[in-house]
């Protein structure tokens, strides 16, 4: 089992979700995050004083899935989330030791 963490631009969420659904992957967790990589922030002004906003809003999608589906999922995510402009985000893959479905106590790949 692997966990895919994808940090994407917020308005791309629907597209990525649909792309994963097309592959049969329907479980995921989404959080609103802030961050930056090489994308610089921007300057704002409030009541006459300027300040820089370095942290930009992003969406983080976490999906845990069986090894067989990982390659396809990665390709789908990257294709759906790409705009070609700076700040598109990143995807990380990490191994998962255990997974449990709370309702049924199933474990392992049956739980994801």
């Amino acid at each position, binding site marked *: 089992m692997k966990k895919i963490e994808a940090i994407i631009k917020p308005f791309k969420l629907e597209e990525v979700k649909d792309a994963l659904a097309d592959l049969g992957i329907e479980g995921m967790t989404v959080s609103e995050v802030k961050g930056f990589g090489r994308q610089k922030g921007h300057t704002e*002004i*409030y*009541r*006459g*004083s*300027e*300040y820089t906003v370095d942290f930009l809003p992003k969406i983080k999608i976490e999906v845990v899935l069986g090894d067989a589906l990982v390659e396809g999922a990665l390709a789908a995510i990257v294709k759906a989330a790409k705009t070609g402009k700076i700040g598109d985000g990143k995807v990380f893959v990490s191994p998962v030791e255990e997974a449990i479905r709370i309702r049924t106590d199933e474990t392992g790949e049956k739980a994801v």
Partner: protein
Amino acid sequence: MLKRTSKLAFLAAILATAAWLANPVAAIAQDAPSTTIVAEETTAVVAEAAEEPPPYTTAEQLAEMPILYPKFMIDNLWILIAASFVFMMHLGFSTLESGLCRSKNTVNVLTKNLFIVAAGLLTYAAVGFSLMYPGDSWIAGKFLGFGGFGIGYDPTVTDPETVFNKLTPAGYALDMTTWTDFIFQAMFAATAATIVSGAVAERVKLLPFLIFATLLVAIAYPITGSWQWGAGWLYDMGFKDFAGSTLVHGVGGFAALACVLVLGPRLGKYLPDGSIRPILGHSMPLAAIGVFLLFFGWFGFNGGSVLSADPVAVSLVFVTTALAGAAGIIGAMFTSWIIFKKPDLSMSLNGALAGLVGITAGADTVTPTSAVIIGAIAGIIVFVSVVLFDRIKIDDPVGAISVHGVCGIWGTLAVGFFSFDPEHKVMTQLIGTVSVVAFAFIFSLIVFGALKLIMGVRVSAEEENEGLDIGEHGQEAYPDFQPVAES
């Protein structure tokens, strides 16, 4: 930085030109025939009524009079409605201040605003009303008077003539009951104190602030009010402050300045290298709602200050008030756009209030055109003032000192420049406004300074970082949202 300085200089040039233009415009304004008649007639009616006693001594007699009774009823009704409008302004202040402060301090801001309504109404009933309108009971020249505790109506007296004469202040030519007179003025009293709550927000300790606000509204506000509206020394001098640019807003604004000087700025606002770190308000929608509510309430604040439902005077006041507020928005918004390349919403909101404060001294005695100019200049002044106060490290989260203090003075002086009544002089206006705001400032320095020595007026650094809602109230404003405290 250099570009900005030259832009500020450019703005100062516009301001100077506008003030210079004001004189010929004011001259044109004085030629306006219909409005001069309004001023003359109003003065004549009031003078006449003050000379003669009213032709009724009991409620039954008044109810018989086919013209005077309906007039009494309509005047009285309008003042009650206006009092409700002014009450709404507290909702406006609450939402505006909440919106411009951080979410972690919202409960504290709301508590201060709620308490001030209570303290204002109760102290005004107990002592404020009689301090402000001593009638003939002056104690120290025309500087201090006191008409006794309570609002002057003893329900145990049953003789109908006495009851009636106490219930209607017909003795000074007002067609309304004493209750109405009281409640309208009581609503004003609390608005002066609530101005301070915005300036000291996010770091003031709750209890000393409540004590200070109570003393300000119970003692300072009615005393300065008595100088003018209570027929004190400023009234004798010919000072004009229609609805309180100085007596309400100037008092609040300069009390706020004194408190902010004693209190100090918020942590992290002014960095050691001299730069200013903006502390963002948590809800622009709340702030905007607040300003719209205040604008709405101002129609009662100014409209009711006519003290009757006189259709000409009240409708003129509605028009000048609305136009000045509108011009204030434009003045602030476009100044922000020119100087900082973007129109700042919070500054534009301040601009609306600045225009309204600016017209408050002379809403019944200037032409609509003059109202626009007064409002526009107020909008520019408030923008410059907010920026300058920040530059000299005076931290005012909502701009209360600029909107109410600085523009309160402008509004008062504007009467001297723009009024179509030749009796209004700039020098008189200047003396009046300076003496009142100086009193408020010194009073506040002493009282708030004393509170600082006795119990401290500022929360600890730890509490300020965590948020006053937890520290002072043990509550959160948005428990479901779990907002992230920035700093």
